[in-house]
C-alpha cells in the first residue's frame, strides 16, 4: 500500500486528538450533570476508529454500537452538533432524542450508534443486502465490541452474510472486556476472529488496534476483499483507558494493567511515528492540538447556548 501523504497523516492525528479531547470534555460535563444517561468513552480506542473510517471509500457504509462518539467525529460529523446531542439540545444530531449512544448521519453513510448489544449487526447485513441487490460497489463496515460476539445476533448476522455473500467487514473492536467481563471469561474461543471458520467466511487479521496505520491498512484490504468476495471477520486489538461507562468502579482490572496500556497510548505512538517521519513536525502537531481545543470550546459553547427540544420535537418522527 502506498504510504499516505503527510496531510492525510496529520488529519488522522487531528481526528484522534479531537476524539480524545472531546471525550475528556464529555467526562467533565457528565460530572457536572450536563450530560445524562449512559456515557461510554472512546479514550484509548482512537487509532481503531480513525484507522477504520479513513479506510472507507466514499460510498462505503459504517455502523457501530453505543461507544460511537469516535466514529461520529472521524466521519466528520460536526463536533458542535454532536456535543449538542450530548447535552440533549434540539440542535443535536438526533434532535436531542438519541443522546450519546445514538449518533448517526444518513448523508455520511454513518448508520448509528445503537444501544442494544448486537442489535445493529442485522442492520449491517440489511444495508449490505441493499448494495448486493442493486449491484452497487459498496461495503458495510460493522463495528462491534468483543462482548457482542456472544449474543445471538452475531451468529445469525454473520451466518446470513456468508450465505448471501454480503459485502460486510465485521470488525470486532476487542478492548479486552465486555463491560467488566474479560474476553477469556466470556468466550470459549477467546481468539475471536477464529469464529470466521465456523461461518465459512474470510478470517481477517487481528490487527494492532493501537496503531492507526496498521488498522487503516488492514481495513482497506478487508474492504477490497469484501467488495469482491463477501464478508470478512477481523479484530482490532485495543484497550479502553476509561471504564465501560461513567461510574464504572473498574474492579475487574488492576491500575497496573491500565498503566501498562497507557504507555502504548495510540496518540502518543502516532506522534512519535510522525516525529520520526517528518522533520520539525512537532510544532505542527502542537498547532493541531490548539485548534482542536478551540473547536471543543466552540462546540461546548454552541451546545450550551442551544435551545432545548420542544413538545413538537417530543412527538415528531414517530411515524413517517
Amino acid at each position, binding site marked *: 500500500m502506498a504510504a499516505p501523504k503527510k496531510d492525510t497523516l496529520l488529519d488522522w492525528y487531528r481526528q484522534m486528538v479531537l476524539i480524545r479531547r472531546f471525550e475528556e470534555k464529555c467526562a467533565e460535563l457528565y460530572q457536572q450533570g450536563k450530560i445524562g444517561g449512559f456515557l461510554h468513552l472512546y479514550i484509548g480506542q482512537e487509532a481503531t476508529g480513525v484507522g477504520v473510517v479513513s479506510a472507507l471509500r466514499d460510498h462505503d457504509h459504517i455502523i457501530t454500537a453505543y461507544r460511537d462518539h469516535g466514529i461520529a467525529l472521524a466521519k466528520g460529523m460536526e463536533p458542535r452538533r454532536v456535543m449538542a446531542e450530548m447535552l440533549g439540545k434540539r440542535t443535536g*444530531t*438526533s*434532535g*436531542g*432524542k*438519541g443522546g450519546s449512544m*445514538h449518533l*448517526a*448521519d*444518513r448523508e455520511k453513510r454513518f*448508520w*448509528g*450508534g*445503537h444501544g*442494544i448489544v448486537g*442489535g*445493529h*449487526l*442485522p*442492520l*449491517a*447485513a*440489511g*444495508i*449490505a*443486502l*441493499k*448494495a448486493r*441487490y442493486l449491484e452497487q460497489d459498496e461495503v458495510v463496515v460493522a463495528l462491534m465490541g468483543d462482548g457482542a460476539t456472544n449474543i*445471538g*445476533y452475531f451468529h*445469525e*448476522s454473520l*451466518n*446470513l452474510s456468508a*450465505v*448471501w455473500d454480503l459485502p460486510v467487514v465485521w470488525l470486532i473492536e476487542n478492548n479486552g472486556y465486555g463491560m467488566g467481563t474479560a474476553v477469556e471469561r466470556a468466550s470459549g474461543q477467546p481468539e475471536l476472529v477464529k469464529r470466521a471458520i465456523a461461518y465459512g467466511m474470510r478470517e481477517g487479521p487481528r490487527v494492532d488496534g493501537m496503531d492507526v496505520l496498521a488498522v487503516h491498512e488492514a481495513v482497506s484490504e478487508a474492504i477490497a476483499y469484501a467488495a469482491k468476495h463477501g464478508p470478512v471477520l477481523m479484530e482490532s486489538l485495543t484497550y479502553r483507558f476509561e471504564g465501560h461507562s461513567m461510574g464504572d468502579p473498574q474492579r475487574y482490572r488492576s491500575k497496573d494493567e491500565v498503566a501498562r496500556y497507557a504507555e502504548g497510548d495510540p496518540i502518543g505512538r502516532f506522534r512519535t511515528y510522525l516525529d520520526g517521519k517528518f522533520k520539525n513536525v512537532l510544532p505542527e502537531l502542537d498547532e493541531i492540538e490548539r485548534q482542536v481545543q478551540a473547536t471543543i470550546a466552540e462546540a461546548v459553547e454552541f451546545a450550551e447556548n442551544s435551545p432545548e427540544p420542544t413538545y413538537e*420535537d417530543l412527538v*415528531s*418522527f*414517530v*411515524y*413517517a
Partner: protein
Amino acid sequence: MTEKIITIREALSSALREEMLRDERVFIMGEEVGVWGGTYAVTRGFLDEFGARRVRDTPISEMVIAGAAVGAAMAGLRPVAEIMTINFAFVAMDAIVNHMAKVRYMFNGQFTVPMVIRTTTGGGKQLAATHSHAPEVIFAHFPGMYVAVPGTAYDAKGMLKAAIRDDNPVLFVEHSTMLQRRSPVPVDDPDFLLPIGKSDIKRTGKDVTIVTYQKGLEWSTQAAEMLAQEGIEAEIIDLRWLRPLDLEPVFESVKKTNRAVIVEESLPMFNVGAEVAAQLQEQVFDYLDAPVKRVSAMDQPLPYAANIELMALPDAQKVVKAVKEVL
C-alpha cells in the same frame, strides 16, 4: 370493477405479486419462501417468476430476518420479510420492537423503515402451548409500527398492498386457519388499496355491538346468525388494524346499541378487549346500559388434545352467551 371470489391465501399471493411487479425494490425474504413455496403456499411459484434475488430463502434465524429487513428498508429497499409464525416472532422481539419501530424516532427522522413482516397467528391446530398463540396484541403496544389483522380475502388483499406501499413498518398478521376462507375481491385493479388504520362495519344491527377481528370475526358472524334467529340484531365491527386502532365506528355503534361485547382469540389479561373497554368507558360511558363483556381464550397455555384445546378457545356459543348477558 371485476370481482372474483378467492381465498385469503390467493388474496395475499396476488397482493404480493402485484406489488413486486409494480416496484423493483419490493422483495421477499424468510424461511421457506422460495424453493418450498412458502409454508402456507402463499409464495408458491414466486421463485420461478421473480428469481432468487427477489425471493430469498433464509436460514432459521428470526433475529436476522427481522433485523436485516430493517437495515435493507433503512437503506432504501422495501422488504417483505416472512416470519413463519408469530410464535417465532418472540425470538425477533428486539429487532421488531427496539429497532424496526424506534429507529426512525431515535435518530430524529433520519431513517425511514418501509417494510412489512408477514406472519401467521392462531391456535386450534393441536400444536400445543408454544405454537398456539394469538399474541399480536403484544406488538400493538409499541408506537412506531402498525399491526394489521385482516379477516377476509378482500381485506387481506387491500391491506397488504397498502402495507407494502406505506413508508412505516407493518407487522402483517394472517390467521393460519383462515387461509382458505373466500370472499369477493377486485381482481383487475392493481391499485386496490384499503386505508391504513380503518375498522369496518361487517354487519349492521341495533341491539348490541360486537367488536372483533380475524378469527373472532368468524365466531361473531356465526353468533350473530344464531342471535338473529331469536330476533337479536348484532352489529359487528371488524377492527382490521390493532394499530392504528380505529374506534370511532365503535363509539358511534355503541351510542346506538348501548351494549358492547369484544371477541378475540388472545389471552384475557391486558388484551384488545381491555383497551377497547377502557376507551368505551372514557368516551361513551353515558351510553352504556350494561357492563362491557369480553370473550377471549382462557387465561392459561393451550394443550395438545383437541377437545380441551377447543374448550380453552372462544367459539360462537360463548359469544352468544356473552351477548345475552349484556342484553
